[in-house]
């Protein structure tokens, strides 16, 4: 660990006599980090409340309503858990990439690719396969679809060093465009052909529709929990995960250690893309039951970044954070009934991510007020 360095420059430089000292912390404890992030969560709701007040709404009423809509009944809980599943998966997808220092923001596009592939598998294989096999086929197809889409960013990154932020972003829009084309721009295999005047996705066969157990959660949630566990173990207990963490801490160290970065980048992207793809597949099987662009393109990939950041890039922490974010998301539709713009939910997500990003400063540095001697000028 590096020794703490001390900044007295601010009070030394002469022009600004700011009585604040910033010190780099030697090491930061995990619980402290988590605590700072939870404070950031609360702060985001506080800032959201100010926005609601400015718009003339009573934030306490709105938040009580949101709480009811998220947890108040078994139906509410089911909606929350339904929104949780894709967020666990996109949160994991982002976690895997970010842990290696690959700033992929492509979970959105990979989720869409997974939905398209998953819906295709459901429509083709669903009628002829028994339910468990049909669901498995959809999951595998969705994973492959997402992984393939991620590869489009991974290969240029691995071979030419093409900035992954740029390529993943552009590929998000391309994926969205393709999905829109399949439903709105053409009479494709995915489109419901019984009603030509009203473009909509063809409903997937019943064998691939997930039924909730106990009326509350479905197989998609179990799958996502299992994947969270697998990702956590893979990061901690496998050579692949060890090498990923080494490369994330220091790309140079990884290369000295002889880790093949080309293969590594592609495999990490593929795993990340597969996770996001499965998010798309389960979303189709448990929420939309068809390739439905308007319901699928709701920024689940971007919210995955919020989840991963709040969860400190820890796969197991992704689960509870995704649950909180899922609760938040599932309240959005009910807000408009209540006369409040559902955009409040997006605003709160944005503020959460900003607060968490800013809070890192207070985790990495210690800020102290220092005494300035009178007449030190």
């Amino acid at each position, binding site marked *: 660990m590096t020794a703490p360095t001390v900044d007295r420059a601010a009070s030394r430089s002469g022009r600004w006599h700011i009585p604040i000292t910033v010190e*780099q912390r030697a090491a930061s404890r995990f619980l402290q980090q988590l605590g700072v992030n939870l404070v950031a969560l609360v702060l985001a709701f506080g800032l959201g409340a100010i926005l609601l007040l400015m718009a003339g709404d009573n934030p306490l009423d709105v938040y009580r309503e949101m709480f009811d809509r998220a947890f108040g009944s078994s139906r509410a809980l089911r909606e929350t858990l339904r929104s949780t599943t894709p967020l666990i998966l996109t949160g994991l997808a982002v976690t895997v990439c970010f842990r290696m220092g690959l700033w992929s923001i492509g979970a959105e596009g990979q989720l869409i690719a997974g939905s398209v592939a998953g819906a295709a598998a459901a429509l083709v294989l669903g009628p002829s396969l028994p339910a468990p096999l049909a669901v498995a086929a959809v999951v595998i197809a969705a994973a492959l679809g997402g992984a393939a889409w991620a590869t489009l960013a991974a290969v240029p990154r691995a071979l030419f060093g093409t*900035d992954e932020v*740029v390529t993943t972003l552009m590929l998000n829009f391309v994926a969205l465009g393709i999905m829109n084309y399949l439903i709105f721009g053409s009479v494709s295999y995915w489109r419901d052909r019984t009603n030509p005047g009203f473009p909509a996705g063809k409903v997937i066969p019943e064998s691939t529709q997930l039924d909730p157990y106990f009326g509350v959660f479905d197989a998609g949630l179990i799958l996502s929990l299992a994947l969270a566990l697998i990702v956590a173990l893979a990061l901690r207990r496998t050579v692949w995960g060890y090498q990923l963490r080494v490369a994330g801490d220091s790309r140079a160290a990884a290369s000295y250690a002889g880790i093949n970065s080309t293969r590594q980048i592609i495999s990490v992207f593929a795993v990340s893309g597969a996770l996001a793809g499965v998010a798309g597949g389960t979303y189709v099987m448990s929420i939309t039951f068809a390739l439905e662009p308007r319901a699928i393109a709701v920024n689940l990939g971007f919210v995955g970044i919020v989840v991963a950041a709040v969860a400190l890039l820890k796969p197991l922490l992704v689960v509870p954070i995704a649950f909180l974010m899922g609760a938040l998301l599932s309240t959005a539709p009910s807000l408009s009934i209540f006369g409040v713009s559902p955009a409040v939910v997006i605003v709160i997500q*944005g503020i959460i*991510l900003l607060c968490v990003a800013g809070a890192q400063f207070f985790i990495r540095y210690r800020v102290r007020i220092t005494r300035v001697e009178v007449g030190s000028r």
Partner: protein
Amino acid sequence: MNDWVLIQSLVVAVSTGTPVVLAGSGAILTQRSGVLDLGVEGTMLIGAVSGFWVTTSTGSPVAGLVVAVLAAAVFSMIQAVLAVSLRANQVVVGVALVILGSGLSSFIGSQGDPPVARRFSGSIFTPVFPESVHDWPAVGPLLLSHDPVVYLSWAFVAVVQWYIFRTRTGMHLRAVGHDPASADAAGLPVSGMRYLHVALGGAAAGAGGGYLTLRLFSDWFDDMTAGMGWIAVILVILASWRSLRLLVAAYAFGAISSLGFTLQLLGWNIPTELLAILPFLVVYLVMVFVSAAERRSQMPASLAEPYFRESR
């Protein structure tokens, strides 16, 4: 393709590209100072909605544009505080600002009486020169048929180019973005320069957003930027942080985005959903080819790296 179709297509390409010219030139200033502002998409939306609100309330597109610029500059201060003072990860902050800008602009659009999103704009920017001039061969439509914001964007591009390469402050700006430690040692206010140029970049993105509501669409709807802000940030990289090259790239983007218009004039019929993919696909492919061919990047060496005086 006959000349009339070509000229009309170019005119549309210019107006479609103008928001990107404005936002991109501003992003050049920000990135030259060493801050990567991925939040442009969100900043543009803030400018777009606030400009539309003011114009539909006052009837003055100029007032709308001014407010768009100011609101966006204020919004971009979030980026400055987090990226410069709190040394946050700039990719995460950028994504957060896009989410926040998207949500906040939609929220603002639901406010007012009648709500901004339901208003119709009676007054938008109109061409500067009289109609009769527009029909002059070639120069008429290409150079003289535009609205004041297009001319403003040309002036802005020229000023940015001159400022970065021909002025002392511009040289300081490049130094701050290239090697903040040396710039600091030479007595330059690194954080101050970064704050200032984040604000300028935000203001320009706001103007770009304002152009969407006050001219290009003359309407406000949620997430209307549809990726334009992201494109602006990326074209800055492709233009090697030079505003004149950015102008060309932005108009190329405008031409590709408005290809549907051209094809319609030619009587072709291609689904709009496919055409909508095209600009993003092209930028993706160009990025891959450029990085495959590139030997040496002209990127500001300290782009997206927070500067911490004590850890140098």
